[in-house]
């Protein structure tokens, strides 16, 4: 039986083994799978995490043998399967959240303080739906609940902390330049205790 596995025996039978063609076919499959994985990665980005990494099989660039190409092909196929699964699960969650928002809008009092963001629905941008009482504590006591839709992303502006830092720096620089005389003036103006 082991003799059947010898290549010479196959050659004797006139059965040629062209590994090069097999490698070319595997490379073609790798190309197709890479394109598919790239598409899924782009689709999932910002919605869910997709494991897209396939580790290198070589430490440097070289011709890979049949087994190594097969391993890459199989790992790419695995990653695609996982990515599809992750996307399906994410879509289910988003559908459930969409249904939740509809139920919240229909009966806000049944979903007290529930908050669903646009991100939870797979929508771009900021904002959320928030079930909260009208007129604060009075609404809570009276059972006047509504869904408040936020107005979107905050406007781009410098953080308050940055303003504080800049002000402090300017103040310090001013103090350094003005010297003692300046400090006396500041005291007179009542800015320092």
């Amino acid at each position, binding site marked *: 039986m082991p003799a059947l596995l010898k290549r010479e025996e196959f050659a004797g039978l006139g059965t040629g083994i062209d590994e*090069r063609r097999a*490698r*070319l076919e595997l*490379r073609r499959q*790798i*190309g197709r799978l*890479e*394109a598919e994985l*790239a*598409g899924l*990665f*782009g689709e999932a*980005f910002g919605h869910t995490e997709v494991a*897209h*990494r*396939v*580790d*290198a*099989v*070589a*430490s*440097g*660039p*070289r*011709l*890979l043998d049949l087994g*190594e*190409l097969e391993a*890459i092909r199989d790992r*790419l196929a695995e990653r695609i399967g996982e990515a599809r699964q992750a996307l399906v699960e994410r879509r289910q969650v988003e559908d459930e959240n969409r249904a939740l928002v509809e139920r919240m809008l229909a009966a806000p009092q049944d979903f007290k303080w529930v908050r669903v963001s646009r991100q939870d629905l797979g929508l771009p941008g900021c904002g959320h739906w928030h079930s909260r009482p009208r007129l604060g504590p009075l609404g809570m006591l009276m059972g006047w609940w509504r869904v408040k839709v936020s107005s979107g992303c905050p406007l781009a502006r410098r953080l308050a902390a940055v303003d504080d830092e800049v002000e402090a720096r300017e103040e310090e620089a001013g103090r350094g330049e003005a010297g003692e005389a300046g400090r006396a003036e500041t005291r007179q103006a009542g800015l320092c205790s």
Partner: protein
Amino acid sequence: MADLAAERLGWEPAPRQGWVAPHIASEFPGLGIAWVEVDAKPGRSPDSVRRRLRDLSDRTYGSQAIRLRERPIPWAYRVFFRQIGLDPDRTRIPVEQLTLDRLHDGGFASHGLPADALNIAIVETGVALRAFDADRLAGSLCIRDSAPGESLPGAPGELPGGTLTIADEERPVALLFGATGEGFGVVKETRRLALASVQVKGVPQIAVEEALWMAASTLEAA
């Protein structure tokens, strides 16, 4: 074919097409190397090049980086990386690496010439380019696998058998999409550059020519 295209475009110097070892060419149809030699010396990039980098930064967004791998040329390089055993998410293809650096640094930083000229051409076309000191190269460039006992100049130890390299007529000068051998990279004393592009299956010839032309003309104009 490259010569004809360059002649048609009236572009001098025309890119030269390198040789690919036959057993590698049969495994990777479409693999090629082309290069062009330019008289230029390294140095600070002029304002025009810096301005171009800034314009390019303004045109490059995060969303493009995510979708980059779906575009035909970056995809072709990613596939080739996988086919030669590299992980393109670790050893990044040149255009992806530059785009990520742009997002990380907030802009394409200037690294002087010839790096800026190459980076502009890489980002605009997606084609992988690199520069060598042309005066140190012996004859034509080619892509071949390393022979037993060969090593990369300046690197310790021998190259593992079958390592894909860019070589001149005497020795390997760089790993394919890897390190450049000591003495073959661009240094302060370099006065003539060889700008080389590695073409893989799926990268059109016209894109390769455009990339080389763009890099060479940026260097010549500087």
